């Protein structure tokens, strides 16, 4: 689920301090949310070598657009939505770059090689499937399934209705299920 209200308030205070000209407040916001944002981007297929730049871009864009942040969603959800846009722009640049990577870190050296192969295959299919989802389906799915955000929060962050968020999630799960089977 989302961050506790206290943390959300603290974000609001940091935003206010940053808007009043305090750079340290921006640094604190970045430190607080870097891990979540980077993980969100990485799970959606952001290449490892681009991850830091993408994270930086998303924060930069978020701070420059703070004037349009109305607080309907938490800063974190809003940041993830901006991260999704940054990643979409990045995808256009990397469209021709095919990244096929079996992930050694999820293999258990003591496990059954057939199971390891299965797990690697499923993970690869999931990664491909997530990449093939429509943008809103992908973002709703990741916000919900990976970040555990409530539909209302996702809807506010992405500027859609709660019902639409539910429908996108449902379709995403259906498509991914078909894709990995």
């Amino acid at each position, binding site marked *: *689920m989302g961050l506790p209200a206290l943390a959300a308030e603290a974000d609001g205070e940091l935003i206010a301090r940053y808007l009043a000209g305090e*750079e340290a407040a*921006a*640094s*604190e916001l*970045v*430190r607080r949310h*870097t*891990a979540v944002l*980077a*993980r*969100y*981007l*990485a*799970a959606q297929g952001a290449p*490892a070598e681009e*991850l*830091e730049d993408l*994270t*930086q871009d998303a*924060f*930069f*864009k978020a*701070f*420059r*657009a703070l*004037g*349009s942040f109305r607080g309907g969603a938490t800063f974190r959800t809003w940041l993830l939505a901006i991260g999704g846009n940054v990643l979409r722009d990045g995808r256009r640049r990397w469209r021709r770059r095919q990244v096929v990577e079996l*992930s050694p*870190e*999820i293999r258990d050296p003591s496990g059954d090689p057939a199971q390891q192969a299965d*797990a690697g295959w*499923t*993970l690869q*299919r*999931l*990664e491909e499937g*997530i990449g093939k989802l429509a943008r809103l389906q992908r973002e709703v799915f990741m916000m*919900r*399934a*990976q*970040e*555990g955000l409530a539909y209302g929060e996702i809807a506010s962050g992405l500027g859609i209705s709660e019902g639409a968020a539910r429908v996108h999630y449902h379709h995403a*799960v259906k498509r*991914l*299920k078909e894709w*990995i*089977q």
Partner: protein
Amino acid sequence: MDPMNEGLPGPLADALRALDARAAERAARVSPDRVAAAVVERLRREGAVELQRVWWLRPAALRVAAASVLVVAAGWTVSLVRENTSRTAARLPVAIPAMDSLTAGQLEAVLQAASDVRAANFGPVTPSNGSLDNLSEQQLQQVLASL
């Protein structure tokens, strides 16, 4: 709540967990301090205000504004011209009493005023209109009546 388990079929939930674990490992290589320093430096360098977000500086908004100014200016000019025309339409300065009671001099003055009114409203009197000096009193009265 474990977000990964919510309504997801087993294989999908397992794969998502693995995906998230790998994403977390990659994310751990991203240094928050380094990102913070770079973001603050970039905000200093490129400015903290995003001009593209200021709606009235967008090219489309500027075009609409320019078109609006043109429309308003055109409308204002037209209304000004109309108002000016109606205001400058000259009238005879006084109501003319019964023509019979006027002397020749008074008639001449009235005719002169009428001539001025005509000139103001319809342009100068052409030479073919002739001179008032050559008209009789009765002709003058007819001219006045026709005005």
